[in-house]
């Protein structure tokens, strides 16, 4: 009985991690299919902090503008001031759990931050970085 409960506990702990990894793997596989890879979390970290001066307001923007340097902490939408839940999957289990959300936010946020869509290579590196936080 105790082992059974132990098993269930272990499985329920592992399952979210497995599904998260599966979602990230699947996304990275689609990036590889378009010629990108291998992916590197260290490069992802540099991209995370990479400033690009915005053409409209002349001010630098990076992922940290809203999400901050520490992905385990809350972020803040730079315009509306609305709190943004931590991006780290270790702190916030919802993160990286939906392929659709990954696609949506990469599209919007790459365009807002860098004024263009991110390349498959950049997305793959960023996902590797975020996944480790």
């Amino acid at each position: 009985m105790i082992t059974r409960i132990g098993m269930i506990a272990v499985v329920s702990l592992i399952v979210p991690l497995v599904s998260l990894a599966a979602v990230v793997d699947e996304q990275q596989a689609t990036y590889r299919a378009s010629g990108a890879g291998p992916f590197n979390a260290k490069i992802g970290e540099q991209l995370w902090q990479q400033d690009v001066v915005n053409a409209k307001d002349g001010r630098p923007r990076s992922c940290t503008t809203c999400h901050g340097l520490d992905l385990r902490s809350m972020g803040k939408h730079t315009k509306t001031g609305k709190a943004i839940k931590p991006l780290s999957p270790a702190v916030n289990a919802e993160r990286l759990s939906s392929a659709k959300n990954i696609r949506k936010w990469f599209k919007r946020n790459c365009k807002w931050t860098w004024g263009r869509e991110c390349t498959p290579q950049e997305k793959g590196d960023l996902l590797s970085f975020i996944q480790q936080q």
Partner: protein
Amino acid sequence: MKKKTWVIVSVLGISLGLLGVSGLVVSDDDDDEHEGRRSWSQSRLDVAPVENAFYKEECGACHFPYQPGLLPARSWQRMIDGLEDHFGENAELDAVDAQQLKVYLTENAADTSNYKRSRGIMRSLANNDVPLRISTTRYFNRKHDELPEHMVKNNPKVRSFSNCELCHTQAAQGSYNEHQVKVPGYADWDD
């Protein structure tokens, strides 16, 4: 004798109770709008609350999920068609999701609603007005014109009229009654 006193007391009690109820009804209608008959629940709310989880999730991720009854259908239509440049932000959605939101927003827009604020906003618009900001409607301005800049725009705890819920404590429930207003940093302020 005792019986008579009891009757008088009860009559008094009932009339006082009725007075209380009617007083409540009158004071509830604190605005300069004169509305026809509304159901009790509607009279407590100014605008139909958001009950669409998808809308709350998608739009509420970045800002207060404004009730669709605060703008006409034509405004929501244009808003969803222009999500690539959403007040300077990129809020793009895939076509299926955008369409789903458009249906919800237009079907519950101010021009299809009977709630007090929706009707007030519609009355303040010309037929060809397509406001994209609720705060640019004449109705909104009339309701907020006595507020000095230091309380909203220059108030670091508020910053913008677009943050409804920071002052209207019941905004998420669809209630914008002025008695529920608490301007952050101005706890005791009352007009």
